[in-house]
Every structure is written in C-alpha cells, then in structure tokens.
C-alpha cells in the first residue's frame, strides 16, 4: 500500500526541491568528490611547494623552520649526483621503451591475424600487464635468485655457466638490464594493445588496393601498416616514457637501486632523500622538479592523444 502524504508536507518538499537550481543540485553532487580531491591531491601538493622553500629536516625537527628561497632548487640543479641519477633514469627509459615498442608492435602484428586459439593467446600475453608492480617485483626477485631461481638454471642449461656463478640483480653489468627485462616483460603487452587498436583502424580497402597494384607484403608493411600505426606508436612511446620516468615500486623491490647505485633511478634518490636522510625541504624541491617534468611531458601526450582522436 502506498503511504499517504499530507498535502501541505508534499507541497513543502516540492518547494524545497524546486527552490534549488540545477546548478546548485549539480554542485551538491560533485561537492564530496571535489572536497576529497582537494584533501588528498591539491592540499599535499600546495604543502609540498611550501616545504620546498624551507630547510625542513625531519631528523632535526627541533630546529626552527627557515625560509631558504630557491636554495633547495639550486642545490639539486648543481648536484652532479642527482644529474647522474637522472641520466640513469633516461637510459632505463630509452632502453625499456625501445624494447617494449619493438616487442609490442611485433606481438600486435601477430595477434592481428586470425588463427586458432587467438583469444587464448591474447589473454596469456596480457596477463603480466594486469599484475601489480609490487607482485611482479617480488616474484621476479624469486625467479632471479641465483641459488634456487629457475632463471639462472635456464641460462645455465643453454650456456653451461654454473647457475650460482652470476646474479642478475647483484652484478653491476647485469642489474640495469634486469630492470629493463622485467619492465619490458610487464609492459610490452600494453604497447601491443595500443598498436593493435592502430592496426585494426586501418581500413581493409587500402590493402585490397595495394594487392591490386601487386604490392608485396613487405611493401604493404612499409607503405601502409607502419605509417598508419605511427601515431599510435608515438602515443605508446609517450605514455610508457612518462610512466617509466616515475618508475619506483618494481625497481625498489628488485634491486633497491643497487648494486651500489647502478640502478638508482631518480625516484629512488627522492625516496632516499625524503625517508632515509629526512631532508624534507630538499626532497620536496626534487619532487616538484620531477612533477613539472612529468606534467610538461603529459601536456605533449594529451596533445598527441587529441591528434590521434581527430584521425
């Protein structure tokens, strides 16, 4: 039975709803989200900007907080250690993104053909991408363990080198390639997905026309497939470069920046400055430098994305 509402109460409620404009109702709905965003994104960012101009050191928090102007930024931008860490990061980004693009594009070309078990293999290839970087870091640490890890045994099977005679994460010559290998294993499927979207957007009639003109498959690849997939490849390169520039969790679990500082990416330098040396002002300034760099690169990424959308 429908409960009866008295006429005056009904009209009061209706007036209350009618009294709010559409704009007010919209604001009421988005206010909790905006409040949450302000609290967890904007406020820490503003606070970090403030701290970057101070001498705050949490291991000596009894010292008075002093405004030091641009000193932290000048320290970072004249520090050769940070400069070398940024170069290490750039080397990691270039090697891993190049490998991911080559492997991802190759996989996309394979998956783009129809064959038996097509969906099964697509799912298998996409699995690493769906894992958390922390999980990937942990299980690759086990896989690469010199004594019990299967990776060293496999290499030993092919080369005859004793498995415990080398350590993929502990040797200066091997550790940088190890993080590149694991990152490529995890993210090449993502590049494959983007390339696959690009390959599927190429209309069939272009290939049909090329076949009428007796263009060889090789010629079709260089004149049709590759030029039409380039915007998608650029998108993948930009996205992966931004993500790898910020890479922390997986590398921290695999090598913690070692041996020595061979694989110390700038994000690990930032963590060490903030939570091992407790130089909060300095690390805030470094975080801002990285933030502005990533934000600038993200602008280019969004512009490239819009260009791809307009195609």
């Amino acid at each position, binding site marked *: 039975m429908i409960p009866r509402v008295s006429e005056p109460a009904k009209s009061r409620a209706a007036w209350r709803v009618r009294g709010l404009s559409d704009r007010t109702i919209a604001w009421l709905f988005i206010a909790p989200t905006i409040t949450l965003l302000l609290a967890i994104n904007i406020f820490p960012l503003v606070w970090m900007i403030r701290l970057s101009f101070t001498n705050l050191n949490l291991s000596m928090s009894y010292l008075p907080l002093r405004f030091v102007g641009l000193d932290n*930024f000048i320290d970072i*931008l*004249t520090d*050769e250690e940070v*400069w070398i860490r*940024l*170069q290490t*990061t*750039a080397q990691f980004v270039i090697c891993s993104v190049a490998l991911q693009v080559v492997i991802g594009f190759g996989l996309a070309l394979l998956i783009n053909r129809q064959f038996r078990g097509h969906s099964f293999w697509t799912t298998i290839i996409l699995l690493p991408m769906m894992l958390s970087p922390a999980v990937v870091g942990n299980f690759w640490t086990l896989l690469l363990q010199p004594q019990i890890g299967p990776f060293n045994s496999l290499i030993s099977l092919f080369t005859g080198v004793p498995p415990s005679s080398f350590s993929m994460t502990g040797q200066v010559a091997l550790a940088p390639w190890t993080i590149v290998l694991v990152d490529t294993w995890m993210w090449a499927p993502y590049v494959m997905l983007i390339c696959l979207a690009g390959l599927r957007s190429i209309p069939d009639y272009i290939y049909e026309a090329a076949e009428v003109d007796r263009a060889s498959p090789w010629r079709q690849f260089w004149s049709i497939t590759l030029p039409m997939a380039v915007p998608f490849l650029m998108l993948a390169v930009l996205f992966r470069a931004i993500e790898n520039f910020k890479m922390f969790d997986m590398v921290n679990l695999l090598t913690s920046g070692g041996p020595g500082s061979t694989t110390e990416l700038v994000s690990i330098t930032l963590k060490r400055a903030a939570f091992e040396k407790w130089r909060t002002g300095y690390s805030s300034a470094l975080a801002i*430098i990285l933030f*502005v*760099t990533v*934000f*600038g*690169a993200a*602008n*280019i990424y969004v*512009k490239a994305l819009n260009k791809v959308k307009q195609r």
Partner: protein
Amino acid sequence: MSDSAAAKAGLSRWFRRGPWENGAMILIGGGIFMLVQPWSIDLYSYSFITILVGTIGFMIVSHFPE
C-alpha cells in the same frame, strides 16, 4: 574595416594556438633533453626553468583561438 576590427584581426593572426603550442612543446622537449643529457652541467642547471616556462606557456597558449 574599423580600427578595432583591424586590430582584432591582427591580434588573432599573431595569437593562433597551433604555432604557439608547437613552440611550447619544443621548449618542454628541449628542457627534458637538457635535464637528462650527459654532456653539460650548465645545460642541466637551466633545464628546470626551461621546462617550467614551456609548461606554463603551454597552459596559456592552449587557450588561444584556433
């Protein structure tokens, strides 16, 4: 054509989004290259200001008319 309309047309010819956005992107890209290049610490020192100018510039010029 009135003076104000001519001035407006002149302004819109100069402040078109495309070339300015490209300029800002070149600044950002150049700044990132300066940040990670291994040859000159002077270039490294001026990298952040270059990226910052490029990024703020990009945010401004992306509001210019097409």
